[in-house]
Structures are given as C-alpha cells and as structure tokens.
C-alpha cells in the first residue's frame, strides 16, 4: 500500500502544480480556445492595492485568464456538459445554444425568437419612413438603394431549437420582421427579402441546407444565392449591365469555409470538427457584364459573407464597407480599420459617384435599419441641402 500512497500523493501534487508550471513555461502545450476576450489587466503590486483589496481581485481575474491548461479545462467542462446534458458550461458573451441533432444557435437570435417583436407600431413606421426618405434622396443623386433582410437561423430552422426556446409557441408570436415587412413594402422601400426567400427555398424538394449546423450565418451556398439576387436587383435598379451570377447546383462536402462553423468553434468542445456537419457550396455560372457596380455597403456579419464573396469573384468595382461593429474597409487603402463612428457617419463624400448603397442586416435587428447610417446620412443630407439652398437664395433675392 505504501508505494501506491506515495504515487497517489505525487499525482495529486502534480495535478495542483502543473497548471502553474504550464503558465510559467508554456509547456506542455495547451489546447487553444476559440473566441474573442477583452484582456484582463495585470495586478498592480503596491501596498495600497493590497490593503484596498484591488490587488487580490485583479490577481484572481488575471490568473483566471492565464492559468495553465485553461483551454483544456474549458474544453473538458464544455464536452462533459454537452455530452451529458446537451448544453455548454461556458456562460455569458455570445453564448452558444446547442440545439437538437447537433445544431448550434447564437443566443441573441434564440432570445429574439422566443421573445417576439414588441416594438410599438409607431416605431416601425418611423424607421420605415426614414429609410424611404433616404432612398428618395439617394435616388435624386442617381444612387440606388437596397435593403437586404437576412434570415435568422432560429426562424428558418426552428425544428432544431431546444425546447427552452419554445418553438411550439412561435405561432402565437409575431416577430419584428413579420410586422415590419408589410410597412416597408407599403412605403415602397426596395427590399431584397432573403428571409422570405430562405423560407421558400427550404420548402423546395431536395433543398440543400441553407445554414451549417455549426454556423450562425447563412452558409456558403445560401450567401451566394443571395449575392446573385443582389447583383440582379442592382442591375434592375440602375439599368446597367452588371455581372450576373446563376447558382446552378450545390456540392456537399466536409470542407468548412471559415464562418460556417463559427458557433461550433466557439462551443470549444474537444470534438470540434466532427460536429460541423455537411457543408454546402454553390456551383455557379458567371456572366461578367460590361461594368461592375460601385457600392457602399453598410452591413452586419451576414453582409460580410456577401461582400467577401463579391470581392473574391471581382464582381464589384470600388466598394467601401462599413461594419455594424465600428470598423471600416476602405477601397482606396484596401485595408480594414477600427472606426468608432462607423457606420453612423459614413459621410456624404463616401457617396460620390456610387451606383448604389446596400444595407444588409439580419431580421433580428429590426426595426432599426442601417446601424445609425440612415439617420445620420439623412441629417447630413438635410444640412447639405440647407447650405445649398442658402447659397442660392441671395441670388434670387434681387
């Protein structure tokens, strides 16, 4: 018994000491975690910090982020919880909600699905009217406007939601999309309603999946079908011969295109890729056309897939992109930079010479449209128009 007790004591001591050793030396290698975190500040080692207790709190928080084998520990906890209870141990942030049959959803969309749309009718009308005013003002400068409403995975595939999301009660709730689409159409706003299209496409016989099991956005196949329609709409609105894309089929394989397993990666399980499921890619035929559209994009992460694909296929000319999360891709600089004011103050100078402005946003973000871009651009136009009128008035006065 004595040798065993010694071995057990050594093993226990190693289990306690190894995380600190790994933290100090980086060895043995840990399993990295997926996801973005704000950095934890290092503790300040001063007597004042000690006596006030901030040193201790900061140290605890700092250690929790740095402790050795953190990646392995988090993946272990998630794997145990996922295997035993169908949920993840990680909480907070953009929490991943495991659904049925290996599907994952993003919590924010599940919450929107469960809650329904509770904004006042007057809010819906106000937002819609603002979009229509901007559309008209842009048209006066010869710029087309298009609003692309992207579908939420929870709305298109509610059959894989967990019971806690109350899919059975969905029929009794009306989402903001369901309430607002009629208002937008009545106001004459140019909408590419991908939400409705996805519901139709899904119902088609032999329809390939439009979302990946492990992704929060439309999959590669779904995104390209929307991109094809986007180009078609832009050509229709401007009367120009832009490139045309036809999706002629789909290929199903296991090759994951980066955003198509973002939730699967964020779940931080050991069985990461085996859960990703089949990946659907489009087969396309492209007709180049005589010109390419010059577009200002205002987009969320759904729009990102469209923009990246259009850029990769060289189907757009100059295209600045303002992201919902305060970043700006500049066509002239060909790089993306942090821009806290984006996309609220894209600026009228960015509109010069454009063929179109395209706003892409997921239905769950309605009734707001354009992440502040609509209101700010309208205000900028009003100021600009007022200045122009003021300059003309003295001439007319005599």
């Amino acid at each position: 018994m004595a040798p065993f007790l010694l071995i057990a004591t050594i093993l226990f001591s190693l289990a306690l000491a190894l995380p600190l050793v790994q933290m100090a030396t980086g060895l043995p290698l840990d399993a990295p975690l997926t996801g973005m975190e704000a950095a934890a500040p290092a503790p300040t080692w001063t007597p004042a910090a000690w006596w006030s207790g901030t040193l201790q709190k900061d140290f605890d928080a700092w250690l929790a982020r740095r402790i050795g084998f953190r990646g392995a520990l988090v993946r272990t906890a998630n794997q145990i919880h996922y295997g035993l209870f169908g949920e993840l141990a990680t909480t907070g942030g953009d929490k991943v909600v495991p659904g049925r049959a290996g599907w994952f959803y993003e919590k924010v969309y599940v919450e929107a699905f469960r809650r329904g749309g509770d904004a006042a009718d007057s809010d819906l009308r106000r937002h819609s009217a603002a979009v229509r005013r901007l559309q008209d003002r842009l048209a006066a400068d010869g710029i087309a406007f298009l609003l692309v409403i992207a579908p939420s995975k929870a709305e298109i595939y509610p059959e894989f939601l967990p019971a806690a999301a109350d899919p059975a009660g969905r029929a009794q709730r009306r989402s903001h999309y369901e309430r607002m689409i009629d208002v937008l159409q009545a106001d004459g706003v140019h909408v590419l309603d991908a939400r409705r299209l996805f519901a139709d496409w899904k119902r088609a016989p032999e329809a390939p999946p439009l979302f990946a099991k492990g992704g929060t956005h439309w999959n590669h196949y779904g995104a390209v079908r929307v991109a094809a329609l986007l180009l078609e709409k832009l050509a229709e609105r401007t009367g120009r011969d832009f490139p045309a894309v036809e999706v002629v089929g789909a290929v199903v394989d296991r090759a994951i295109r980066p955003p198509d397993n973002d939730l699967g990666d964020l779940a931080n399980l050991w069985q990461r890729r085996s859960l990703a499921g089949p990946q659907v890619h489009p087969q396309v035929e492209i007709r180049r056309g005589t010109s390419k559209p010059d577009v200002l994009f205002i987009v969320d992460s759904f729009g990102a897939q469209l923009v990246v694909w259009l850029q990769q296929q060289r189907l757009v000319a100059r295209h600045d992109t303002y992201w919902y999360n305060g970043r700006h891709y500049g066509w002239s600089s060909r790089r993306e930079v942090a821009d806290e004011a984006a996309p609220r103050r894209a600026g009228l100078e960015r509109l010069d010479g454009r063929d179109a402005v395209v706003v892409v946003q997921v239905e769950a973000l309605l009734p707001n449209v354009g992440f502040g871009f609509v209101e700010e651009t309208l205000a900028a136009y009003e100021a600009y128009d007022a200045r122009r009128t003021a300059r003309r008035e003295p001439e007319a006065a005599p």
Partner: protein
Amino acid sequence: MVFSSLTFLFVFLPLLLAAYYVCPNRGRNAVALAASLLFYAWGAPRFVLVLVASGLVDYALSRHLPAGRGPDRRRKGLLALATALNVGLLLYFKYANFFVDNLNAWLARFGAESLVWTAVALPIGISFFTFQKVSYLVDVYRGTAQPARNAADYLLYVALFPQLIAGPIVRYHDVAQQLIAREHSRERFFTGILRFCQGLGKKVLVANTLAEVADAAFGAAPGALPCGWAWLGVVAYAFQIYFDFSGYSDMAIGLGRMLGIEFLENFNRPYVSRTITEFWRRWHISLSNWMREYLYVPLGGNRKGVVRTYMNLWLVFLVSGFWHGAAWNFVAWGAFHGFFLCLDKAFKGTRIARAPAWVGLPVTFVLVLFSWVLFRAETLAHAVAYAGRMVDLFGAAPETAAAIEFGRRHAATLVAAFALCFGPALKPHPFDFMRLEPARATVGQAAARFAVAMILLVWSASILATSSFNPFIYFRF
C-alpha cells in the same frame, strides 16, 4: 480566498504544501500560520489586524485564567472581560447595522430623526472564529486545556485556514495537543486528498448548479411563483445549502489531514433524520456541540426544572438563529427550530415519537424545508409570502409566471443530490465510499477511490475555469 477558486487550488495550495513539507517539523506551525494569515488577508486585508490583535489580547488574558493563577473572582472577572471583548467585536461588526436599522425604523415610526450611521463591513468568518476564541478562553478557565504554549500557537488555532471562514467550529480542547505535536503520514495525507476532492465536487458540481434554481425561485416575486416552482426552489435550496456547507466542511477536514490535523465531523446525512432533534445531531454538529457546551449547559441545561429546560433549549436556538445572520428571518428560523425541539422533548417516549421512519423522515424533511424558506428569504415578509405560495396547493396559477430555467443538468443534479442524501440504505453509501481507511484497504480499493477523487478534481477545476471564459464570436468595440 475560497477553496473553490483557481487561486486557491493552483497557486495557494501547491505552494503551501511545498513550503510546509520542505520545512522541518518545528517550523511547520509557522508556515501554517503565515499561510493562514495570507489566506484570510487575501479576502479581508484590513480585518487580519482585528483577528491578530484580538487574538493577542485573548492570549495575554488567558495566561491568568487557569486555576491557581489567582483568586477565583479575578479569574472569573478576566474570563468575563475576555469573552465580552470577543462577543463585543462580534456584536459591533455583525449586528451594529441591524440594531441601528431597527432603531431608526422605530424612531421613524415616532417621527423622530434617524441616527446617522456609516454601515460597518463584516469581517469574513468572524462568527466562527469568535466562537473558537470563546471556546479557548472557557476551556483554559475550566482547566480542560492548558493555555497555548505561545501566542503563535494560539493564533494558529484561531486562524488555521481550513476552518477559519466557515468551520467546523473547532473546540480548543479537541485540537490543543495536535497544535503541539501531530502525525504526518501518507495514509492521513491520502485520506485528506479523497475528502478534499469529495468536498470540492459537492460544492462546485452540485451546490453551485442547484443554486441557479434556488436563486431564480427566491429571486422571483412570490406572487409570480406557481406552487410547484416554490417547492422546487426550496428543495433545490435544501440540497444546495447541504452540499455547499458539508462540501466546505469536507474540504476543511481534507486540508486539515494534509497538514496532519484531524477535525471532527460536521455533518452526518442530516436529511434522513426522523425528528428535528435528530436533525441537529446530524447538521452542523460542531455548532450544536459548541452551543451545548458553552451556552446550554452554563444556562443550566436540563438541571433547573422542566420550564427552564424548555426555556434554555429555545433560547439556545434563538441565539443560534441570530448567530447565523443579523436579520429577523434568521431569528425566526432559530425560534422555529427551537419550538420543534421543545415539541420533540415534550413528546419523547410517546407513540408520536415512536412513529416509523416512513412517517418521521418526510415530516421532518418538510419542516426543515419550511425552515429553509426562513433562512433563504431576503426578509421575514418575503419568507411568509414564499411559504404562502408553497401551501397554496389548489390556488390558481399566477397570470404571469416567473421564468425559471430548469434544464436536464438541473434535473440530473437534483436527482443525484436526492439519491446521495436519502440513500443511506445503499451499501456502501457513496459518501462512505470516499471514507477509506488505507490500513484496512487493498490497493485496488484505494486506487478506485483515488480515480474518483481525481475525476472530481479535474471536473470541478474545469467548471471553475469556464467561469472566466465569456467569449464573443467576433470582437465588438
């Protein structure tokens, strides 16, 4: 610092064990004391001064307490002074806010101006270490223990980190000899590992999970709580508090063994009790022992007639309730238990007292559940409203019911907790499984238990690690 934290598990504990066992025997008390003061100061840096200063005063006064060190009246006076100092500190730090709040409420009722008062912060663990200090003073006065050899030994008794924050309440005479000389053996260390990991698992895997349900139920407005949810909430809380508190005691006992010190057991499957009296023999045993030895018996116990016996019994539980928390619901909780203890005593030997287990056990458990409502509720009014929802068995469901998340993890944990608490008939009982005497065990038996302990350690640590991981898919500004 708490045991169920990454800082304790992976920094404090390995460094302490390394320093403790590298140090020769005569220096180990110093290592343990330094570590204990650091452990306490980590959570309450200023209050460590209160702990040390009051400890030094105790030690100085205790030198004059043993019989033969002066006239009895002087010794008694010194004991009263030392006890009053400690109880005074407890009253000030723990109850001053409560007294002032209640006084202000009365003053407001009569239209008088409120007292201006800056709220006093509560030194963590003061209820526990005050009782330990009183135990030392009384033991030395009574002659059941000699005064500590030196101030460091006494401070180590008071501040020893395994039991400092939440007990068990160690009576001085139970550990006095171990502070001077104790055995460090592989067997003791090994059983300490098993016990510590068992406690960690109870706390992190069971108590913390059930706390989510209990917190949601007690956080909801009672009017929005359907009857079933109210019961579920209090059952979840009953298991939460048991697994939390007994888990902490397990960890304390385990850590004590790693340092060569044996603490007495603090829990013994309390929910299988058939009476409230039995419940208190099984629940927080060290508090019951302390109350009996240092309060009930000095009050006269059962030696001064029937009425005084009942009075003493009830008074002890009233004090016990107030000791648990400075609020009226804790006083009511103590009074509730005291009342049923008196009833037990009154019916002792009758047919009611001899009721079979299948009657006594559920009745006692339901009574305990109602007492937990008093304990967990924010206020007495909240407790009454919550208990009202529990007894409203045939009432209409609330129009807008509170949303309480109760998933497969909660259900599985609740079932496991139920089985662990009410499965004493199982042989071997899961808790007994982890209580191994290596001298009588085979290597296979010890290895199986060690494997379970390591699984509990890794699983618990992994859960603790996730608490700091709240990632976003993409960075948002």
